[in-house]
C-alpha cells in the first residue's frame, strides 16, 4: 500500500491564534529564536492499489472539496515512498 500525505495550512493572511499561543509559550520554556509558528493539519492516506495519475487526481479533488476549506486553507499533496 502506498501512502499519500495531504498537508493543510491556514492561508498566510489568516490569523492563527493556536500557532501564536504556541509561539508565545516557547521563550517561557527556554526555546529562543522562533519568530513565528503556524499550526496546520496533516492527513496520511493509505491508498489501495497504485498511486497513478488517476488516483492522485481523485485525492486532489478530495483535498479540495473536503480535507481543506480553500476559502481559508491551502493544501499540498505528496506521495511518500
Amino acid at each position, binding site marked *: 500500500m502506498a501512502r499519500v500525505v495531504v498537508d493543510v495550512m491556514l492561508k498566510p493572511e489568516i490569523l492563527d491564534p493556536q500557532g501564536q499561543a504556541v509561539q508565545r509559550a516557547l521563550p517561557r520554556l527556554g526555546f529562543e529564536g522562533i519568530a513565528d509558528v503556524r499550526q496546520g493539519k496533516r492527513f496520511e492516506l493509505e491508498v489501495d492499489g497504485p498511486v497513478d495519475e488517476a488516483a492522485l487526481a481523485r485525492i486532489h479533488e478530495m483535498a479540495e472539496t*473536503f480535507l481543506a*476549506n480553500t476559502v481559508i486553507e491551502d493544501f499540498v499533496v505528496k506521495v511518500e515512498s
Partner: protein
Amino acid sequence: MTARIGVVTFPGTLDDQDALRAVRLAGAEPVSLWHRDKDLRQVDAVVLAGGFSYGDYLRAGAISRFSPVMETIIDQAKSGMPVLGICNGFQILTEAHLLPGAMLQNNHLHFICRDQKLRVENAETAWTADYEQGREISVPLKNMDGRYVADERVLDELEAEGRVAFRYLDLNPNGSLRDIAGITNAAGNVVGLMPHPEHAVEPLVGTGGTDGLGFFTSIVKRLVAA
C-alpha cells in the same frame, strides 16, 4: 394555511428542540428533519440548529455539509427556499458555500457563553423583516468556532450590498472580521448567524427576553403571505 418549518437534527446537534419550540411559538408547524433523509417532508423553510454536528471533526460543519439532507437543502436554497443557520448551522452554510467566507476558532481560543448585543443591519431578509433596521437586540451566544473570516474583496462586497445582516455591539466576542455576527446571501433567503435567537423567544429566559422571536415571526409572515 399553516407554514411548515423544518429543523434538521444531525448527530451532535443540540439546539434542535429549542428551534422547534421557537417555530411553534411563532405560529408555524415545526417539522423534525433527520440528517440521513433526502426528503424535506414538504417544509416551506428550514432551520439548521446549533450544536456540534459530527463532533465538529475536521472543521465545524464540514462533514454535515455532505449529509443527504444537505444535498436537498443546498438545491432548494439555491432555488429560493428560506434557510436559517444558527451557530453550527451558520458554519454548515459557509462550508456548503451557500454563504461566503468561513468560520474559525475564536481568536482568544476559549469557548465563550454570554448574552450578546447585536445590531440588526439588514431588516429585509426572509428571516429579519419583523425587525427594524438598526434595532439593537440581545440574544445568547455560545461557541468555540465563531470567528467569521473572508477576504477583503468578499467583505467589501458584503458591506456594499447590505449583506452584513447583524453586527456585534459593545464587544466582539470572537475576533470576527468587521464585527460581523451574521450575513445573508444575495437573494435574502439564506441567513446565517452565530448567536442564538432560538434561546430568546420566551420572557422567562435571557436578558433579551423575546428578542430572538422576530426571526421566526418574520419567516412565518413571509410564508403566509406567499
